[in-house]
């Protein structure tokens, strides 16, 4: 099997920097506020739900801000798969690898919904 070398688009680098930057700012700001508020120990930062997290982050609550930063960080690799899909679809015009990237994306999305089927 022959694979021609295809690299990630440079625009993807800019998007990654932006998204990773937002994630780091949220996590760092959340942590500083958590520590400033006298937060100590562990065990109170588990995920409570996306809508509660968003609402909490909007209200500048430290733990939801950190949680949202984590979610965004975990989402950055998904962005890279989406970038690959668009790159194969529009730049490389390679439907086979666009389909493969879509397959990876579907597996990732199914995985995200798996915990709700417990």
């Amino acid at each position, binding site marked *: *099997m*022959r*694979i*021609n*070398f*295809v*690299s*990630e688009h*440079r625009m*993807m*680098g800019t998007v*990654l*920097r932006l998204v*990773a930057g937002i994630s*780091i700012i949220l*996590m760092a700001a*959340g*942590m500083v506020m*958590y*520590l400033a508020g006298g*937060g*100590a*120990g*562990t*065990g*109170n*930062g*588990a*995920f409570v739900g996306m809508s509660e997290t968003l609402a909490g982050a909007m209200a500048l609550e430290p*733990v939801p801000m*950190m*949680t949202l*930063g*984590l*979610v965004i*960080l*975990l989402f*950055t*690799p*998904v962005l*890279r*798969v989406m970038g*690959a899909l668009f*790159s*194969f679809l529009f730049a490389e015009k*390679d439907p086979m*690898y666009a389909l*493969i*990237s879509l*397959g*990876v994306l579907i*597996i*990732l999305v*199914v*995985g*995200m919904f*798996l*915990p*709700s089927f*417990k």
Partner: protein
Amino acid sequence: MTAFLLFLTGLLAGSFGALLGLGGGIIVIPVLTMLFHLPIQTAVGVSLVGVVATSTGAAIIHIRGGKADLKLGMLMELGTTLGAIIGAVIAGIVNPRILYLLYSCLVAYNAYSMYRTNVRYEAAASTDRASGDESPAVADRLWDPEENRDLFSYKVKNVPWGVSLSTLAGVISGLLGVGGGIIKIPVMYLMMGVPLKVATVTSNLMIGITAAASGFIYFLYGRIDAVVAVPVALGVFIGALAGAWVNTRISTGALKKIFVIVFIYIAIAMARKGLGV
């Protein structure tokens, strides 16, 4: 204080990971379980966040160089993401003692693999010196920095085997919270005929996607505590950037020898936890 120590753990894991060519997971998990006495499933979840931070941090540095092979990465990710999800689900069911024992085996293999690589690189470096070539980096000779897309193509062999072993790497990643590069890189380089540097950077793209696949499951099952994971992730991120910068300026041969001994110690300690002795 706890948050600062967690940040320091991430910082060390990220920087040593970048210096030694490892994901941070292999350092984060022993520290969180042995020093912070966290359950191994929690440590694995936090480690997965660290792996994503490492991969994204490295991507930000490397993406301008355009070194990762997207086609190969996506093809192998079909198996790896599936494996990672299976691994994450199994990790929630299996007895933690089994996870400690598996982790011990992985760290021992890591020590062996690092020792072998060190010997191979030293042999290559001495051959280079004898022939008047001062460059010790084997990988750099396999990599053409002025790559041309039309010319830079290679015959990828053993694709079904590669994808199957990549699936196994995914299961290990989801179970034990490591990137799985220790399996993917040799598979791509030795079995599939991919140049070493391309295999390394493609593996880095893949470990982030793989860790995100299982990381979301850990997160949504409530196994990732933001208060623990955030200081570690921030530390890993900064450490990985610093380590990548230092890596180009120092020789890591001696450091690798020290870490071979550290990893043997960790492997024994984790095996004892697993066996309950």
